[in-house]
């Protein structure tokens, strides 16, 4: 832990940003010293990103920014004009955004993007600049800098392009670097390396302002943490203070919502969580469920299934010889990084894709072998929940119509008036008011949409739900609520869940058994606590090691 040195790189006092009459940042005060990493934590809409942008004079169109102090690199920029701000951007402050795929211009070679600050701020010759770009790419750990400089962001892997984005931000070695959700879209292993890279930059004396919704990420890097909510900083302190002894209930709620260390069955969102020391996972599991799981044949059985797709110049194997069983009332977690074949496996389970070899059976009966016409009546038994609920709704339909449509499948020919009643009931079950039925999904928040999606899945009275990254797009507290909801519903209805996620923490919290997928194969499977505690396969070991963990104390 570094302590603030004499002269802060950034000094902000009473920063306020308003859009029209709505104030979204309300009196934020903090400072960052050289070599220090300060993190702002908050959920979407808390004003953390607007704060970060305001520090670059880029709060956005139609915004009004004021502050009593806004000193960047020793220069007061409060009330500065665009020209003055431009001189500061890139030179005094660098910015790293989430997902370099869209944060780097997809049509320009990354070398040009990195070159931009050099061209704009420095009088350097072309060869000098080219050499500097090479140097920068090498310094962020790019394997082949010259090759990479000529690539466009879409032609690089997620980790490499994020490195390129960082290289562009530190091109002029700015004393302050703002990282706004720098690792959010990345796989765990990549995330760990990018965080290490940021830590390395920090160790060179650069001040870092880290913006994140993820306490686990923040915990790794930050010296001090500011918790933001509704435009205000409600709590601040050293990382140890905030994570170890949170004063504010909201902070405690945030910490509790992180699922990774919370055992199966313990709600994440509802009450004050106990500070877990060592919890016996199996103890918290309901004995009834275990009994069911043990005695019955698997509800869903995936048996030596393979699937390949034609790609230019050959075939791509998405799923290779995978076997997996889900029993009634059980949650099976499927973990893997992007591109590992998780989603293809989900589609195979749903009967949307037919396997090349192997077979999927439902309740011991053929499933993948059936033709669509025969399979159709049984489809209601398997429900699905997607990462992006909005795109899974017909944009023209209201929530009520969406639910009625699904409900009719569960029991065709039922009376329409009963449907209204059923819809209200479904909405209540997922924690929504009955009036939501009249609204269109577009007008709902992300969490509400996912609740509607769950309600739809339940409407058809399924026996098993395939959940493909159901919470990855949600804020941590919302994620906690959705996970709790799924947990409750499972308990009430005896549902089986195939829970697919890239997030080890979420899977650890949800799953009874875990299967780890890599490059189309299941490399390891077994009871959740065993796999995560004592991984056997090196890949699993690396996943577990790289997963961000909330470190307290």
């Amino acid at each position, binding site marked *: 832990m570094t302590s603030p040195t004499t002269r802060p790189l950034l000094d902000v006092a009473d920063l306020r940003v308003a859009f029209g009459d709505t104030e979204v940042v309300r009196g934020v005060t903090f400072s960052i010293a050289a070599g220090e990493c300060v993190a702002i934590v908050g959920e979407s809409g808390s004003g953390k990103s607007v704060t970060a942008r305001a520090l670059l004079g880029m709060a956005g169109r139609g915004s009004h920014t004021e502050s009593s102090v806004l000193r960047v690199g020793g220069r007061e920029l409060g009330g500065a004009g665009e020209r003055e701000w431009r001189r500061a951007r890139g030179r005094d402050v660098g910015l790293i955004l989430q997902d370099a795929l869209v944060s780097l211009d997809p049509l320009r070679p990354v070398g040009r993007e990195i070159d931009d600050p050099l061209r704009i701020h420095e009088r350097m010759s072309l060869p000098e600049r080219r050499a500097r770009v090479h140097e920068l790419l090498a310094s962020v750990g790019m394997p082949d800098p010259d090759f990479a400089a000529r690539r466009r962001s879409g032609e690089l892997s997620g980790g490499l392009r994020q490195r390129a984005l960082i290289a562009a931000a530190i091109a002029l070695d700015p004393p302050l670097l703002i990282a706004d959700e720098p690792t959010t879209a990345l796989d765990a292993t990549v995330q760990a390396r990018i965080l290490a890279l940021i830590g390395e930059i920090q160790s060179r004396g650069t001040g870092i302002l880290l913006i994140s919704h993820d306490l686990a990420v923040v915990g790794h890097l930050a010296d001090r943490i500011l918790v933001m909510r509704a435009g205000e900083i409600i709590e601040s302190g050293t990382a140890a203070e905030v994570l170890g002894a949170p004063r504010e209930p909201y902070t405690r709620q945030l910490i509790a919502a992180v699922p990774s260390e919370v055992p199966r069955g313990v709600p994440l969102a509802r009450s004050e969580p106990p500070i877990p020391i060592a919890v016996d996972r199996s103890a918290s599991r309901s004995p009834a469920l275990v009994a069911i799981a043990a005695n019955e044949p698997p509800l869903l059985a995936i048996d030596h299934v393979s699937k390949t797709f034609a790609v230019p110049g050959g075939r791509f194997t998405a799923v290779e010889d995978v076997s997996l069983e889900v029993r009634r009332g059980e949650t099976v977690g499927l973990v893997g990084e992007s591109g590992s074949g998780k989603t293809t496996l989900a589609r195979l389970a749903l009967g949307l894709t037919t396997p090349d070899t192997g077979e999927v059976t439902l309740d011991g009966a053929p499933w993948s072998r059936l033709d669509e016409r025969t399979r159709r009546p049984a489809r209601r038994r398997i429900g699905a929940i997607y990462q992006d609920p909005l795109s899974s709704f017909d944009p023209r339909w209201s929530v009520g119509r969406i639910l009625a449509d699904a409900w009719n499948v569960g029991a065709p020919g039922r009376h329409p008036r009963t449907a209204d009643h059923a819809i209200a009931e479904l909405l209540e079950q997922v924690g929504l008011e009955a009036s939501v039925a009249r609204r269109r999904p*577009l007008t709902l928040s992300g969490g509400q949409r996912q609740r509607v999606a769950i309600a739809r899945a339940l409407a058809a009275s399924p026996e098993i739900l395939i959940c493909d990254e159901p919470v990855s797009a949600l804020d941590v507290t919302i994620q906690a609520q959705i996970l709790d909801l799924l947990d409750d519903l499972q308990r009430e209805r005896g549902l089986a869940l195939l829970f697919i996620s890239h997030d080890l923490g979420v899977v650890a919290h949800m799953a009874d058994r875990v299967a780890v997928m890599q490059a189309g194969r299941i490399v390891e499977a077994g009871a959740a606590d065993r796999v995560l505690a004592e991984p056997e396969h090196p890949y699993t070991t690396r996943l577990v090691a790289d997963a961000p963990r909330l470190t307290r104390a």
Partner: protein
Amino acid sequence: MSELELRQTTIDAEVAHAPRRRARIARLPRAGTVVAGAFVLFLLAATVVPGLLETQDPNRISPSEAFDSPSLAHWFGTDESGRDIYSRVVAGTGTSLLIGVTATFIGLAFGLVLGVLAGFGGRVVDYGVNRLVEVLFAFPGLLLALLVIVVYGPGPVTATIAVGLSTAPGYARIIRGQFVAIRSSQYVEAARVLGHSRGRIIARHVLPNALIPIFVLATLGVGQAIVWAAALSYLGLGAQPPAAEWGAMLAAGRTYLSVAWWMTVFPGLMIVGTTISTTVLGRALARRGRGDA
């Protein structure tokens, strides 16, 4: 013909970025929609009851009043035979809109058949239809129109058919694209997972969602069809005298551009006004259909 295709990109963008679009559209002046609505109402009135709006018989000649500039007696002036241009513009609304709407309808109907075949007919049919559409694209639109007219004789009917046919490949390509996009969308997948039949999914999800953007395209197509029919009139192959069709009026007035600007400006304004107002309204309706704004 297939500026429609260009439009398609626009609409894809609208669909893909519905929330952003909403924010943007909300900023557009509502007055625009109102004005467009009023204009379309005028057009409809002129189509249904032209007699109420005309100030005199649109075909009444009066050589002594030829080339009179706009005045209280003749709001839009008179043409080379002393006919009242305002009354002719009103009288021509029905014909012009009929040409525009029918041609668009023909193009759309052909496009729909081809698009549905390609979108739902399986790989082989899709391939075949796509090649056919490519062939039609490679065939210059105006030539197609010329051939139809030369074979079946000039006149509003053949001009309409000709314009309609030449727009068909553009529509077909767009409609196919719409179908393919919606067919592979997640809400169609969600409906499949619920166990809905193919026919029900097409009827309840694919068609309605595909047709909304196509409706917007069609509103643009109407104006464009009128412009194309006007080009045929310039070549002397469009509407036949004394029909007061806008394109024909524009073509006739071109000769006298230096003598009587009003002969072309007013019919021209009608075409432009029709294109803009139907487009504005079409977009507004599409937004309502999609549920944003």
